[in-house]
């Protein structure tokens, strides 16, 4: 177990270094950093001096080490577009993305789990057929299209909810929150639904598959034989055993929620990190892009560190360490939906 943990930690560090290397290459070799800093009338000698002062003549390894050192302290240089420290910009944008992502994850769990239980228990009922059909459509519809449709219906035609932005926010230290104003709550509804929809269908299918699998097992039959009520069997025994993989997968999905937030934020002009990245791309704002790259890499490494990655659990049965449940089925299902 200890060897496993060490191996995982080592792997994570390796991944982070790779991501940092890509970011560093972007940062240093795309265009000339000196040109980005000085005016056109700077002499060649001054440029060389600046290059020397900034350590841009140092060997590659030294420069890279310096970059990593700065990155660890959250120092990514100045944004070309806004001429402010990138770390500061990211810190400003992060609360918006995190609030949206957690709201979406919460919604997905709140609706997805009961829907999964329902469709798992009443497999052939009319309602669960309808839910499954809707979920197929939900998986096929692109996220941005769902967002556009929601804007069209609820913002343009009905005029109930705002179509862009975060509404009024309250500052708590460096954190800004939209949860303390009515306007902020109204603003988060549509983006959160858009972001949650895909994850909701995923969780629903996962819970359904797990419920069906667990309900077939002997201990459920035994519980029924003991004369326990349906309610006790379904919720006390069956549901409890389906929740472990659900929590694992939801944890893993948090990363993809943050990734998909890029799309949702663009549709709703939500002032988070995703929108910041898209804007940085169109302005070729390399420091911001590099910082976003490192940050997202970091999020994913942390998320994957806490729970075994899909690849790991897919391989487990091959090694004959299978044991309880069927990890292949769980991850296979998650993959089929994520694709």
């Amino acid at each position, binding site marked *: 177990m200890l060897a496993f943990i060490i191996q995982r930690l080592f792997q994570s560090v390796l991944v982070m270094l790779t991501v940092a290397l890509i970011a560093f290459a972007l940062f240093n070799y795309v265009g000339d950093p000196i040109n980005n800093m000085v005016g056109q009338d700077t002499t060649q000698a001054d440029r060389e001096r600046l290059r020397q002062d900034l350590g841009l003549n140092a060997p590659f390894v030294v420069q890279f080490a310096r970059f990593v050192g700065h990155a660890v302290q959250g120092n990514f240089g100045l944004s070309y577009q806004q001429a402010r420290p990138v770390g500061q910009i990211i810190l400003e944008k992060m609360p918006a993305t995190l609030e949206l992502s957690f709201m979406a994850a919460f919604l997905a769990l709140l609706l997805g789990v009961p829907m999964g239980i329902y469709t798992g228990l009443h497999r052939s009922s009319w309602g669960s057929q309808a839910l499954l059909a809707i979920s197929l459509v939900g998986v096929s519809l692109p996220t941005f299209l769902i967002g556009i449709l929601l804007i*069209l219906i609820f913002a343009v035609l009905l005029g109930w909810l705002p179509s862009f932005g975060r509404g009024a926010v309250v500052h708590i230290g460096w954190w800004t929150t939209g949860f303390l104003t009515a306007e902020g709550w109204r603003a988060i509804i549509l983006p959160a639904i858009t972001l949650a929809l895909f994850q909701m269908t995923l969780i629903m299918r996962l819970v359904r598959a797990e419920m069906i699998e667990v309900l077939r097992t002997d201990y459920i039959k035994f519980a029924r034989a003991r004369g326990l009520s349906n309610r006790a069997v379904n919720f006390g025994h069956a549901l409890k055993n389906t929740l472990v993989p659900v929590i694992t997968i939801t944890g893993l999905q948090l990363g993809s929620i943050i990734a998909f937030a890029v799309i949702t934020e663009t549709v709703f002009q939500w002032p988070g990190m995703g929108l910041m990245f898209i804007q940085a791309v169109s302005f070729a704002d390399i420091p911001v*892009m590099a910082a976003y790259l490192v940050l997202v890499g970091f999020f994913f490494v942390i998320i994957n560190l806490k729970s075994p990655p899909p690849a790991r659990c897919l391989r487990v049965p091959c090694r004959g360490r299978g044991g309880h449940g069927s990890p292949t089925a769980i991850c296979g299902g998650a993959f089929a939906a994520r*694709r």
Partner: protein
Amino acid sequence: MTVVAASVACVIIGAALLAPLIAPHDPYDLASVSLLDATDPPAWLPGGNWSYLLGTDNQGRDVLSTIFYGTRVSLLVGCSAVLLSMLLGVTLGLIAGWRGGIADTMIMRVADVQLSFPAILIALLIDGVAHSLLPREVQTRITLYVLIAAIALSYWVHFARTVRGSAMVERSKEYIQAARVIGVHPARIVIGHLLPNVIGPVLVIATINLATAILTEATLSFLGVGLPPTEPSLGTLIRVGNDYLLSGDWWISVFPGTVLALLILSVNLLGDWLRDAFNPKLR
């Protein structure tokens, strides 16, 4: 259900292929486009014009015709990206499965790492980085290829893993050993004997990935890092239409969106059907 999906897919693909013949207008012929006709609503609404069945966009182009041409671009990008990722994935998978050892470890380590990030994020990063790297003049000309490469690079893992798995199983079978014993060149064994026996599941994955590739392209174009408005795909059309959504001109984005959703849904259903029909093991 499958029949419906197949016919919807056929109609859309047929319309895309025949776009120059059946489109009522040529949306990229500047002579026939008039700004006076801009943002006309669909024909059945007040103010609509029957020569523009689904209305016109902000530059007076016929929405129906732009959809035909846009679907063409979307399908082109989707198919090329899938073919390219298939080529890449199958090659790497064969190398990993056949050689084993350090090559296998390295390829699969990269695959593992890549698999822990969502594919769309990787495509977005590759495409975004390429976008800011290239100078503006070059950009518009090669955007198409960059996009195809970005999508292909983010989806090769599925192919590689599948091929590696089956290659490792096949490798130890008798016909491969027999070929080795009689001294067939390894390259010939891999291509002539191994490849035909591992290619089955690959074709199924390719169909399923086609829908995803089209979706990824549309998403990237919608985000503005994909195809430019001069060469619009369905995603670009939706992006353009999105700017006019708030002023009530819903048809510019909703019709391309509907076609995109129908296309993806039908390809998905066909892929699922193929999977069940040809390979019950994958279920």
